[in-house]
């Protein structure tokens, strides 16, 4: 079956195990698509499920694959030797969730005697996709080779997400000569003049778009000054990435519930119920954090669009629902995988562990005495179980809060503000009455705010100098949120004004700036300017009058007022 999947026309993508999707620069739609990737739905199915047109889905999938979030079977494995393959097949239907065997290399070996050693699995998972997918828009009637068409389609789909280096296919540190070489050689493929007089259909437009982008990348990177600015900007984007897209809301309560639930089910399955409760947090941590990310948990059937997966430092710390390949070896017979998903079997297994007879399967014995004793024992056991469970839940939560705080600290130390901020957010929602942790979180938040606002400021300046006024306005706003400053607020407002959009927002920002420093004439003039542009001359006049009170005798303000009066205000 796996071989037939590999050669099938419509290929189903699998989510890649161990990828922290939150760190990926995804668009909301892409995240939505990713949430529907399960290894069994093809493009059409995903399209139906999401309501996004199939070509669009295709592009998103390509992008996701590019980012390493999903992969196609072709890229996963050449079909394993006959026996192994059939073993997989048998194991698959019983695997929990829709994730098929191949995407869960940690799972299959435990269930069967599949020969795939961990090393091989690892290698196969990371193999990049070599095959060129057959795109629906490829048109053989055009006088453009199918390969070139595929390259054009592929690149045009990825354009919005690539930075200037990626577009040209050069490493970050590439020197000027390498950039020029890359640019000039790509021109040969992507300039419509290379195919002058040929039938190109819609590809001319695509090529022109690609060409424009290549040229922009080349022009920016081949000039020392603009390159320096751009690199600083890229740095700022990386530092601040993850905060801006509304597609990545802060972890919601549902999200946490889900995480907790997962943790609980772990606790319930814990193979050591007899040990005293309140396990030392240190104990499970090393073994859980140890597995290399590649063989770590396959992300639970992804619902990224709604609830993003945890930030980078997190996944290794989540106990995997199934032991990793290496760790699974000692006890495959104890907990065969088939049973895990079967509630009855699981209950029986749990009961066996507590020394109980399987309750639901055997009818109760007729003996009254025995029956009562059994019931008392049962309720005692249940109570005990409940207590331990509660205790463990709290312990896990506390432990997790500490973990998140630690992750945030690490993030701050490593300059990874995004990860730090995300970790803090989670910690903030988890933290209960622990005042100490609370204080620590608050402190870290302030520290981060300052760092981030620096980055945003830098980014905003670059965007402004590049004429991206709306983007600059947003970055300025974020910078001001991190570290309030009337000047930054004013810059944000004026960028909106320059962009000619969001004038209401601009007004609010400018007003906020004025409130912060009511004695500054320049801020009031800014606000007046925005009022005027927004078609609120009366407010502009009021603001100008206040400004005039601050700076009596300013000709500029007087003239301005006169002009407004003449306009009939």
């Amino acid at each position: 079956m796996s071989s037939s999947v590999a050669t099938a026309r419509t290929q189903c993508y699998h989510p890649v195990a161990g990828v922290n999707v939150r760190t990926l620069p995804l668009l909301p739609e892409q995240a939505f698509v990713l949430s529907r990737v399960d290894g069994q739905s093809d493009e059409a199915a995903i399209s139906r499920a999401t309501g996004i047109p199939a070509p669009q889905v295709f592009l998103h999938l390509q992008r996701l694959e590019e980012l390493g979030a999903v992969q196609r079977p072709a890229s996963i494995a050449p079909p394993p030797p006959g026996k192994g393959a059939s073993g997989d097949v048998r194991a698959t239907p019983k695997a929990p969730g829709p994730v098929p065997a191949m995407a869960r290399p940690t799972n299959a070996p435990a269930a069967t005697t599949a020969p795939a050693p961990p090393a091989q699995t690892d290698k196969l998972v990371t193999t990049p996709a070599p095959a060129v997918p057959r795109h629906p828009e490829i048109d053989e009637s055009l006088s453009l080779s199918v390969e070139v068409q595929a390259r054009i389609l592929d690149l045009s789909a990825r354009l919005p997400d690539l930075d200037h280096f990626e577009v040209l296919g050069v490493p970050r540190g590439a020197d000027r000569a390498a950039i020029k070489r890359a640019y000039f050689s790509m021109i040969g493929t992507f300039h419509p003049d290379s195919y002058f007089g040929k039938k190109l259909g819609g590809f001319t437009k695509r090529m022109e778009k690609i060409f424009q982008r290549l040229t922009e990348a080349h022009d920016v990177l081949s000039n020392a000054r603009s390159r320096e600015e751009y690199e600083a900007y890229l740095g700022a984007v990386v530092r601040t990435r993850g905060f801006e897209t509304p597609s990545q809301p802060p972890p919601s309560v549902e999200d946490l519930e889900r995480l907790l639930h997962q943790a609980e089910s772990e606790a319930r399955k814990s193979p050591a119920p007899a040990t005293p409760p309140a396990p030392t947090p240190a104990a499970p941590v090393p073994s859980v954090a140890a597995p290399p990310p590649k063989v770590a948990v396959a992300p639970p059937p992804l619902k990224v669009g709604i609830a993003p997966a945890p930030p980078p430092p997190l996944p290794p710390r989540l106990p995997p629902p199934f032991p990793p390949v290496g760790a699974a070896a000692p006890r495959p017979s104890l907990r065969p995988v088939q049973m895990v998903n079967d509630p009855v079997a699981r209950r029986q297994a749990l009961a066996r562990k507590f020394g109980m007879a399987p309750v639901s399967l055997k009818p109760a014995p007729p003996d009254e005495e025995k029956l009562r004793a059994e019931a008392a024992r049962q309720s005692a056991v249940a109570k005990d179980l409940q207590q331990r469970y509660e205790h463990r839940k709290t312990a896990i939560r506390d432990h997790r809060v500490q973990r998140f705080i630690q992750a945030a600290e690490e993030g701050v130390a490593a300059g990874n503000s995004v990860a730090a901020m995300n970790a803090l957010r989670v910690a903030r929602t988890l933290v209960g009455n622990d005042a100490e942790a609370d204080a620590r979180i608050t402190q870290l938040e302030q520290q981060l705010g300052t760092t981030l606002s620096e980055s945003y400021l830098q980014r905003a300046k670059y965007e402004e100098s590049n004429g991206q006024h709306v983007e600059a306005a947003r970055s300025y706003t974020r910078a001001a949120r991190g570290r309030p400053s009337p000047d930054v607020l004013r810059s944000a407002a004026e960028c909106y004004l320059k962009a000619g959009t969001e004038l209401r927002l601009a007004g609010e920002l400018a007003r906020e700036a004025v409130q912060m420093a009511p004695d500054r004439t320049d801020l009031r003039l800014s606000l007046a300017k925005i009022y005027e542009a927004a078609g609120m001359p009366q407010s502009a006049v009021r603001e100008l009058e206040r400004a005039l009170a601050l700076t009596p005798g300013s000709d500029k303000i007087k003239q301005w007022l006169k002009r407004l009066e003449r306009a009939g205000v």
Partner: protein
Amino acid sequence: MGTVIGIDLGTTNSCVAVMEGSAPVVIPNRGGYKTTPSMVAVTEAGKRLVGHIAKRQAITNAENTVYAAKRLIGRKWNSPQIKNALLTSSYNIAEGPHDDVRIILRDKSYSVPEISSMILQEMKIIAEDYLGQPVTQAVVTVPAYFNDNQRQATKDAGTIAGLDVIRIINEPTAAALAYGLGKDIDKVIAVYDLGGGTFDISILELSSSGVFKVIATTGDTFLGGEDFDARIVDWLVHGFQQEHDIDLRQDRMALQRLRDAAEKAKCELSSVRETDINLPFIISTGRNEALHLQRTLTRETLEGLTEDLIERTIEICRDALSDARLEPKDLEDVILVGGMTRMPAIQKAVSEYFNRPPNKGVHPDEVVALGAAIQGHALVEEKTDMILLDVTPHALGIMTFGSHFEELIPQNTTVPTSRTKVFTTSRDNQTAVKILVMQGENDNAEKNELLGEFILTGLRRAAKGEVEIEVTFEINTDGIVSVFAKDLETGQAQSIQVTATSGLTREEIDKMIETAKDYLVERRVDEDFEAAKQEAERLIAEIERLFPEVEGVVGSSDFGRDALGKARTVLDHAREAIEARGAAQIRQHVDGLARTQRMFKGVVSRAQ
């Protein structure tokens, strides 16, 4: 696959080239010259003359001889350039029906593209004669600083001449192609192109992979050799006025003679230090007294007269370099293009500014046509990997409230490209916006060139500034500008492909194509007639030469007299046919003439 020719349609001279194997060659005209004067004339008999033949009769037919039509092409009647041309042209310029310019030759009005098409047609014929096969495709060059209207007008001229202009390219860029072809180098170069009517400077990057990328280009479409000539003419006119108190400008023929002499003197001063300008009988006074003009012009005087023009070109070079974010020292070569660059003062100024001697490896008059031929070949030939990346010489944008010009695509943007900007309404309850597509660098939109306009309607009634309209400009690989406007609220959209206006409508162009074809037929008939006539006249002359001798031999017999009488009839008929200007009729008689001539020859030889 037909051959693509490259045509350098110059202000004063034009040149045509074609690829032969891997190298481009310039095609000489019938007179053996590699360039053809861009002049068109109509004789008293209504006959059209193009090239050298038009130039030769320019003095005696100044009013009906058009020169430097390129300075008028694609311009509006109300533009200052046309006002200026009205003052200095020896031919008549009139207002056309679409705010365009018409030229009146012998009571017939011609559009400027039509005049240019006559030159292009001549170049096409030169190439066809040389290649021995019809030519339909061409790459035509224009000054880099031409705006879209001027480019479109040039393209229309090609269409009228029966040419499919597959690409319009910039002259300095073409020169760089010819310079860089087969050199396999990575270099940043400057092309300084001072032609008859325009000045261009382009900075290009040449890559060994065959890509020619223009980094920046700028120029002046009213600065060229003609302006240098005009300075000399001014100097001559002024001197003459002081001496005789007569304004030579009032006399068209005198003005044309002055212009010719000035151009000649200017060219001579590139190799000698001084030259005499000698124009006898330049004008007659009111008392019918002939006056002569005789002056000596030295190189120093000329340089003094034109110093500011040269300085202006260097200033423009400075602009181009700053646009390209480069310093003179970053350039690895400087190419000189255009006849004017032979002037020593220009070579000196260029060497000084760029701090290096200019390249002497290219022929300033031919290199542009060669480059055009190379580009034509590169486009249609699959094997070549040469790609030319040019830039927009002018900014593109729209006119906003208060005649303000809002730029979307800046000057020197590599094409193809596209840009988008969001605009809002400027009045309360505005339900429609007019998008005026403009080209130029002036903040005041009125001073820029209008390329086209359209209206986006159905906007929501709202306070001003509330409705947002997204405007997108796009320039494709062929240089065609498209503009899209979209109401962001309703998604309602409008777009136009800006077909820049050459001042001619489609119908007019179609009519002109027909006229041009008629001309070709007429011309062929003419040539046919001329050939037949020459043959017949040669025979007639021969027969008449032999007549007395033959008469002496056979005139004594009745048979002889009879034969002589018949011979006379043959001659008379042939002469009548020539008189009637019918090539076919003449041919009918050529046979008889030839037989008669043979008989006469036989009689004479036997008699000896």
